[in-house]
C-alpha cells in the first residue's frame, strides 16, 4: 500500500468512527433510554453457581460484583428521582462474598450499607447480620465481624442484650482490642446510653479503615443531634403555642425563646411537626435517618 493510500485509509477509518460516535450521541438524545431499561439486573443469583462459572478467576469476579454493589448502592442513594430501590444490594454482596470468602470489606462495608435506614439504605439489619455471619463462617476468629454484628444490634436494632453478647464474643477472639469487654458490660448495665454510644463510636474513630472512621464521625454527629433534639423538645413542650395554633419555629422565635431555626450538627435546620410538636432531623440532612430509638 502506498503511503498516500495508507494515510487516506486511516483518515477514512477515523472519519467512520467519528460518524458512529455522532450517530450514537444523536440517538441517545432523541431516544433516551429510561431507568427501566438500564436498571441493574442480576442474571445469575447463585454465588455457588458463579464460583463454578468463574473457574480460577473467582476473586476477579468477586471484585466485579463488589464494584457493581458499590455503584448500585451509590446510584440508588444519590438518585434524585423516583423511589430508591435496594433489592439487589444483598444478592450482589452475597455473590461477591461467595466468590471471595475472605473479602473483608465486602462483609463489613456491605453490612453498613444494608443496615442503613431507608432512604439512605435498604434498612435491613437482618441482612446485614446474615452477611456478617457468613463472614464469621469463613473466618471464625475475625473479631471485627463479631464487633460489627454487635454494632448493628446496638445502633440499628437497639437490642442491648444481643449487642453485649456479640461484643463479648468479639472480645474473646484472638487479637481483639481490650476495650470490647468493658463496652459489653456497659451495654448491659447502662442500657446503651449516649455516653456508651460516644465511647464506642470514638473507638471506631480510631480504626485504620477510612470508611469506618467516616461512619463513626456520622454516628457521633447523630448522637449530638439526638442531644440537641432532647433539648429542643423540652423547649417546645415548655412553651407550647396557643390552642388551635400549630407548632412552629416561627412562633418560638416570635416569643424570643429561640433566635433562629435551630440547625442540626451538619447545619441543616431541624424540623418541627406542626401537629404533634415533635422535633426531628430534616430528611434533607446527611444525618437522616437517625438510629431508631429503643423499643
Amino acid at each position: 500500500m502506498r503511503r498516500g493510500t495508507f494515510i487516506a485509509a486511516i483518515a477514512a477509518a477515523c472519519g467512520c468512527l467519528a460518524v458512529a460516535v455522532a450517530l450514537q450521541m444523536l440517538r441517545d438524545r432523541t431516544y433516551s433510554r429510561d431507568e427501566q431499561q438500564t436498571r441493574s439486573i442480576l442474571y445469575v443469583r447463585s454465588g455457588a453457581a458463579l464460583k463454578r462459572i468463574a473457574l480460577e478467576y473467582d476473586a476477579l469476579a468477586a471484585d466485579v460484583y463488589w464494584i457493581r454493589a458499590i455503584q448500585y448502592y451509590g446510584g440508588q442513594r444519590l438518585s434524585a428521582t423516583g423511589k430508591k430501590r435496594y433489592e439487589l444490594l444483598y444478592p450482589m454482596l452475597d455473590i461477591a462474598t461467595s466468590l471471595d470468602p475472605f473479602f473483608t470489606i465486602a462483609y463489613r462495608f456491605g453490612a453498613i450499607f444494608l443496615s442503613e435506614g431507608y432512604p439512605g439504605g435498604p434498612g435491613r439489619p437482618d441482612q446485614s447480620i446474615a452477611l456478617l455471619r457468613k463472614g464469621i463462617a469463613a473466618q471464625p476468629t475475625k473479631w471485627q465481624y463479631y464487633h460489627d454484628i454487635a454494632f448493628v444490634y446496638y445502633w440499628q436494632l437497639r437490642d442491648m442484650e444481643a449487642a453485649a453478647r456479640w461484643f463479648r464474643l468479639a472480645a474473646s477472639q484472638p487479637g481483639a482490642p481490650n476495650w470490647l469487654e468493658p463496652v459489653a458490660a456497659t451495654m448491659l448495665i447502662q442500657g446503651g446510653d449516649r455516653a456508651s454510644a460516644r465511647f464506642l463510636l470514638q473507638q471506631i474513630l480510631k480504626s485504620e479503615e477510612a470508611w469506618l472512621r467516616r461512619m463513626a464521625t456520622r454516628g457521633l454527629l447523630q448522637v449530638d443531634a439526638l442531644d440537641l433534639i432532647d433539648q429542643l423538645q423540652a423547649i417546645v413542650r415548655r412553651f407550647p403555642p396557643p390552642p388551635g395554633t400549630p407548632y412552629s419555629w416561627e412562633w418560638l422565635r416570635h416569643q424570643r425563646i429561640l433566635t433562629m431555626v435551630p440547625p442540626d450538627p451538619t447545619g441543616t435546620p431541624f424540623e418541627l411537626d406542626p401537629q404533634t410538636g415533635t422535633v426531628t432531623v430534616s430528611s434533607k440532612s446527611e444525618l437522616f435517618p437517625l438510629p431508631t430509638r429503643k423499643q
Partner: protein
Amino acid sequence: MRAISWVAVNVFKESVRDRVPYNLLLFAVLLISCSYLIGQLTAGQDVKIIKDLGLGATAVFGLFIAIFIGIGLVSKEVERRSIYSLLAKPISRPQFIVGKYAGLVLTLAVNVAVMTLALYAVLGYMTWVETAEFKAGWEAPGVDPRLLKATLLIFLELMLITAVALFFSTFSSPILSAAFTFGLYVVGQFNSDLKNFDKIVQSKPAVWLARGLYHVLPDLSAFDVKTEVVHGLHVPAGYLLSTTAYGMAYIAALVTASVVIFSRRDFK
C-alpha cells in the same frame, strides 16, 4: 542436551517472531489503565483489585499462550512438512519433543516474569503515592513478596497445560487439540469435586469411577492460591512443595506419553 536446548531456543525465537510478546504490552496497558479507573470506582480496595487483576491476567494470558502455541508445537511441523528435515538432523524424537516443550516453557517463563515485574511496578507506585493512613487499611502490604507464591503456582499450572497441549498435539489436529486442552483445563478446575462424589451418589461403581477420574485428571484447582495471597493469608510451604511435586510428576507423565506417541508415529 545440546539438541534439546537448540530446539527450545528455536521455539522461543519463533514465538517472538509470532509477536507473542505483544501480549505483555497489552498486560501493562491493562494494569496501568485499570489502576487509575479502579481507584475511581471502588471503596479503598484498589490494591486488592489490582492484585486480583494482575494475577488473573497473568493466568489467562499464559493460558492462551500455552494452549494456542502448545497445540501447534508438533502438528504445525507436520503440516508444514518441516518435520522431515528436522528429523533428518541429528535430533532424536524424544529430544525433539522435550525441546519443543522446554521452548514453550521458556516463553511462558519470560512472559510470567515480565508480567510479575509489571504488577510489582504498579503496586510499588500505588504504595508510593498512597498516604500511610490509607495504607494502614490494607490487609496485606502493596508490594507483598507472598504474591510470588501465587505466581509460582500459576507458572506450574501453565507448564502443566502446555504439557497437555503438547500431548494432544502429538496425535491430533490443532483444532481438536485446542478443544481437548481447553476441555481438560475446565475439567481440571472442577476436579476436586469428584473427590466428594460419594456424598451425593449412592452407587459404588459411580463413586469408584469418580475417584479414579479425580486421580487421573489434572487437579488444576490446587494451583489456585490467588485469593489467599491477595488477602495476606498463610499458604504453608508444605502445600507449595507438595503441589509443585504433584505438578512436576504429572508433567513428566504427559511429556513421557507425548514422547512415546511421537516416537511411534509414522510420517511416511
